[in-house]
């Protein structure tokens, strides 16, 4: 017999995944708006963020109710607390998507600074981290979550590389400062998305294994 509580936990997880889907979609559309110079796509991201915000409030309500009414313990408690934190990270990922979309709208008004090479790689990495951190949640897979933590270093490395490159362009030609600066912001936003995915992965490890790996050196995770 499936208990009422199990059903509620299942629903919480489903809603969280739904929200994750919205956040992932937001990020993907926002970076594509930059790469494909697609104004309509950027505007859609701004429009769709409302749904993410609504989901955040709904998930918070569910968490509050489960804690108040069911007094969850052990793995259930860890899941519910993780869900609450992941909820915040997803909402922040949604915000970062909006930031990227707004940059996209401003970048569109200028000629392209340079061919996009590293930026698509970085966005693929960051999107993959978000996706896998949520896959780790679904499958209770601590190893997959750990692989997300490792990938964050690659994202940071790409950010440094892109910053250096854009700086060179700006120093050479002051006419590109405005769009290049927007690209710096986009890069920073993508890096933050990787950080949020890292938080989610850390929460998954806590949920599955009961180990708190936040702020630990890589070899101790």
């Amino acid at each position, binding site marked *: 017999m499936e*208990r009422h*509580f199990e059903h509620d936990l299942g629903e919480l997880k489903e809603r969280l995944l739904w929200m994750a889907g919205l956040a992932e979609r937001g990020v993907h559309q926002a970076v594509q708006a930059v790469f494909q110079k697609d104004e309509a796509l950027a505007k859609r991201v701004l429009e769709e963020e409302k749904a993410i915000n609504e989901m955040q409030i709904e998930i918070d309500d569910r968490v509050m109710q489960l804690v108040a009414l069911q*007094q*969850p*313990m*052990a*793995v*259930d*408690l*860890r899941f519910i607390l993780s869900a609450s934190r992941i909820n915040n990270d997803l909402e922040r990922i949604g915000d970062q998507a909006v930031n990227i979309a707004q940059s996209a709208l401003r970048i569109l008004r200028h000629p392209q600074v340079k061919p996009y090479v590293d930026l698509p790689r970085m966005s693929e990495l960051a999107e993959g981290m978000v996706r896998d951190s949520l896959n780790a949640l679904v499958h209770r897979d601590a190893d997959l979550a750990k692989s997300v933590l490792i990938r964050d270093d690659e994202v940071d490395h790409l950010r440094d590389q892109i910053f250096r490159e854009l700086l060179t362009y700006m120093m050479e030609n002051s006419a590109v400062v405005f769009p290049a600066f927007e690209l710096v912001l986009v890069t920073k936003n993508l890096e933050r998305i990787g950080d949020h995915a890292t938080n989610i992965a850390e929460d998954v490890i806590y949920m599955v294994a*009961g180990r708190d790996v936040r702020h630990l050196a890589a070899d101790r995770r």
Partner: protein
Amino acid sequence: MASLSPVRTVSTESNRNNVSVKSNPSVGTPQRFSLPPKSSVAADSGQRFKISALKVFYGPKEVLHGININISSNVVTAIIGPSGCGKSTLLRSLNRMTETVRRARMEGEVLLDGENIMNMDVVRLRRRVGMVFQRPNPFPKSIFDNVAYGLRINGHKGSLAAAVEHSLRRAALWDEVKDQLHKSAYALSGGQQQRLCIARALAVDPEVLLLDEPCSALDPVTTAKIEELLFQLKPSCTIVIVTHNMQQAARASDSTAFLLEGRLIEYQPTPKLFTTPSDPRTEAYITGRFG
């Protein structure tokens, strides 16, 4: 030992800060970055009970299969587990109440402050290790006489009235009954009767108090009073409580032991056991997936 405790370390640090504050009148602000001291449980003052390879038989049936557990002084230890797992038997072994069951037999060793309880005079043992049961069981006597009973048979010297008042105060019952001490104990409510039983147990100043589901017949308000009482008693008494109510174990105890089918499955500090238990059977039980 004490100088090694984290609390002590932090306080010497803040003393050092205070000294250097003299030259700087901005009172209270630490000169150096430091974390606030962690509130901590009273330092472990040793083991009250050392239980090794404890087996209990009722007739031919073995209900405890060799329990090894140490119970620390001045903390609340909770024993949890599904019905029939042997938690009450374990509790009752600690003051040899199991002997009151016909054909019951104990094997193994239970040391109370290093002394084997099997070699102790049982009356003396039960004076040191008091017990409170699931259903309040006051004597058919006045409130006063219930508490005074144990004092009288132990030949109490000094003021009986003062001793009764002291026990009733420790059991958080004094204010409710001080004007009706000579009324029958049966006139009290269930929760008051239970606290009276605790006062009766405390009257002879036991070192250990065993409680066998003391709140299962009580409403939430009275339950909260008894849990608060356990907290108040900790500095002077070692408490072992058997409970079906997991939230109660989580709220009221410092360590929790999980028993299953006569075996000790897991014994941990309570916050650890209820957030990240080590054994999958503990996890399944406390999340309500069996038992």
